[in-house]
């Protein structure tokens, strides 16, 4: 009877010793970073569960695809990439622990942080504290760079302000005579923030619009029929919704079925990611945006070859079109490649340390298939915004924009050092004159 106890006890002691040694090694590793590592480790936080995994999982797929492609081409500076994925869903308190683990235990050289704004706000201070370059690869909150300085954090795509202002300008051009508007946004930070930004801009550019309903249904709602009835009854000229994911799909389906789209013009700044799910259900003639300029039918992509390669590669592997988080992920990788190239060149072929890597990102300009993005001195990336009217055609089994306007990033982004809401309030109607002409598409 004593034998099994002995065995299990020894096993326990050995196990403890082994894990202790591992921990020890981990701790040592964090302190001394080798000159040129055998692999370039990247921590990637994204949603792998919960409702936002509709963005997280495709972006993870994109990351895996990109890493394969980059590694096949010899990695970055001859070093192969390796990703460590972390689920954002358990919440910010868990995520900050995971961030530490990525840096201190997995020894990642760079972290790609977060879809959720809350996650980004929690992670950026850690980037400063741990001096670890962190690319905010998808989150949109304007608060990050407007409320603090983060020398190690860079956002490789646009953010809330341009993503809201561009559709607003498009609306003012397309239907300048609207008098009433209703908003139905998800009840969480993005839903609230985007409405605050929109309202500030709208009141400055077209004072006197009556807001007939402000609705913020519970995040992750599955039914909007009551809200739709109210919208049908109040008959606003314009319905704004920055919702996304399953909620946007449900909203559009229920609203189409009840012909709300025939009564009101919809403005859907985050529509792109839901168009595939909606397919032919999406009605034509409504304003749709993509949190960037990477619509599949971009009228004049800078590098059509690269665009086709990425889209086709993704489709081939995953049997669906990439959505905007996939493009944002690709932008982060593009920025990473460009920054390492710049830093290695600056060091005469040597491998950059954390500070040198961060320096390389400041002011960096990198390519995307559709355009180029420049990172400003505050870390914010300048990404163009492409907005248009929904249309169904032969080329895609889902809606894409027509009458597209490409808003230059600098035109719709808050200048460095200003707060978005204040800046939007200060806008003058003459900004409308700068809006480029629509391209039929």
């Amino acid at each position, binding site marked *: 009877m004593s034998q099994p*106890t002995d065995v299990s006890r020894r096993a326990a002691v050995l196990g403890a010793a082994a894990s*202790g040694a591992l*921990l*020890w090694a*981990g*701790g040592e590793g*964090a302190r001394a970073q080798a000159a040129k590592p055998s692999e370039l480790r990247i921590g990637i936080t994204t949603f*792998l*569960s919960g409702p936002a*995994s509709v963005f997280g*999982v495709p972006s993870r797929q994109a990351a895996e695809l990109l890493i394969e492609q980059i590694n096949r081409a010899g990695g970055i500076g001859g070093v192969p990439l390796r990703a*460590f*994925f*972390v*689920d954002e869903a*358990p*919440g*910010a*308190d*868990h995520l*900050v*622990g*995971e961030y*530490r*683990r990525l*840096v*201190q*235990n*997995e020894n990642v050289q760079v972290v790609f942080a977060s879809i*959720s*704004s*809350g996650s980004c*706000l*929690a992670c950026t*201070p850690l980037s400063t*504290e741990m001096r670890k370059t962190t690319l905010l690869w998808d989150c949109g*909150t304007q*608060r990050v760079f407007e409320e603090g300085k983060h020398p190690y954090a860079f956002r490789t795509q646009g953010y809330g302000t341009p993503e809201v202002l561009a559709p607003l300008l498009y609306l003012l051009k397309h239907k300048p005579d609207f008098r009433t508007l209703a908003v139905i946004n998800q*009840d*969480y*930070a993005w839903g*609230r923030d985007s409405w605050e930004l929109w309202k500030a801009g709208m009141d400055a550019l077209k004072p006197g619009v009556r807001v007939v309903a402000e609705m*913020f249904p519970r*995040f992750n709602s599955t039914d909007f029929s009551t809200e739709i009835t109210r919208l049908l009854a109040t008959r606003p000229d314009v319905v704004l919704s920055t919702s996304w994911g399953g909620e946007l799909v449900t909203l559009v389906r229920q609203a189409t079925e009840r012909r709300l789209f025939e009564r009101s013009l919809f403005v859907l700044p985050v529509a792109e990611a839901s168009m595939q799910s909606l397919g032919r259900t999406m009605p034509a003639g409504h304003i749709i945006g993509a949190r960037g300029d990477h619509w599949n039918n971009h009228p004049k992509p800078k590098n059509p070859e690269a665009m086709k390669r990425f889209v086709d590669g993704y489709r081939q592997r995953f049997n669906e079109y990439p959505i905007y988080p996939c493009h944002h992920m690709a932008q982060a990788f593009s920025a990473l490649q460009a920054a390492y190239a710049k830093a290695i060149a600056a060091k005469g072929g040597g491998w950059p340390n954390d500070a040198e890597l961060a320096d390389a990102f400041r002011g960096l300009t990198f390519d995307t298939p559709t355009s180029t993005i420049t990172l400003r001195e505050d870390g914010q990336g300048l990404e163009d915004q492409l907005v248009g009217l929904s249309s169904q055609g032969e080329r895609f089994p889902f809606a894409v924009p027509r009458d597209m306007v490409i808003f230059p990033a600098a035109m719709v982004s808050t200048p460095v050092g200003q707060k978005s809401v204040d800046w939007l309030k200060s806008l003058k109607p003459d900004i409308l004159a700068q809006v480029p002409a629509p391209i039929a598409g």
Partner: protein
Amino acid sequence: MSRRAEALLALGGIAALVFTAWAAPWLRFVLTVALAKGLAVLGILLLLRAGQVSFGHAMFLALGAYTVAFAAPAVPETLVLLPAAALLAGGAGLLIGLFVVRYRDIFFGMLNLALSMVFYSVLEKFYAVTKGTDGIRMPNLSVAGVEPGSEAQGWIMFSLALGLALLCAVGVRAYLGSPMGQALAGIKTRETRLEFLGVPARRVLLFAYVLSAMMGGIAGALIAMTSRHVTPQLAYWTSSGELIFIGILGGAGSALGPFLGAVAFELVRVYAAAAVADAWQMILGGVLLAVILFAPGGLVGILSRRRRQA
């Protein structure tokens, strides 16, 4: 478990925690959070003694965390914020307790759940004040007037959590052995008799409820100070479920159980998340299922059985 065995286990546990925190700095953070959660679970354990399952206890944790987050810009002092969070949570516990101790079993559980969901909604809805789901970012805090560096801060939070855990565990142990604690267990088996002994059962439960709310508040404050970011997620019903989960995982039979459970829970979660980032929930669920089916006494139960066999 005998008194000596428990003391030995506690000492061994402390040594292991300190060693791990020293050897792997990233785990020090995880362990601090685990100890804090253990504190909240210790509070839940009190109510479990009375046979009552609070399915909304995360509200006190969130209350403690938000107290700290709101007060920190004005009073960035750890040693002021911690007691403030405990007091506020205790006060809320008293108010809510006066209402919920009149109910038992599913009604007790569900009322707590309902109130926690109301609190969660308030945190989420009053965006202008609470920043909604983005949550609130906390400034650096001082400890006794000194603002430590980030490494020192980490150790201070770890030690605070460990010290408070130890203090509360000893306190709870004494409390559960006292007439009041034993009367609490009497609520579970024969509440009628308690009344016929001249003991106001509701007041006995209320006392425990306030205590457990305070421990929840302290836990929330520690978590807020450690992670430096608070979100409404802390109050969501799944967080409350998680706390009960930890209680059962550790074993409800000993004041050490919650901490054992919390450390095990956080480690399993961290490693499960690292190994299979998109199926960690399933792993945790599987662990929970296995514990309930095969070791309903939790980790403490397993350990004490081991000792008895050896």
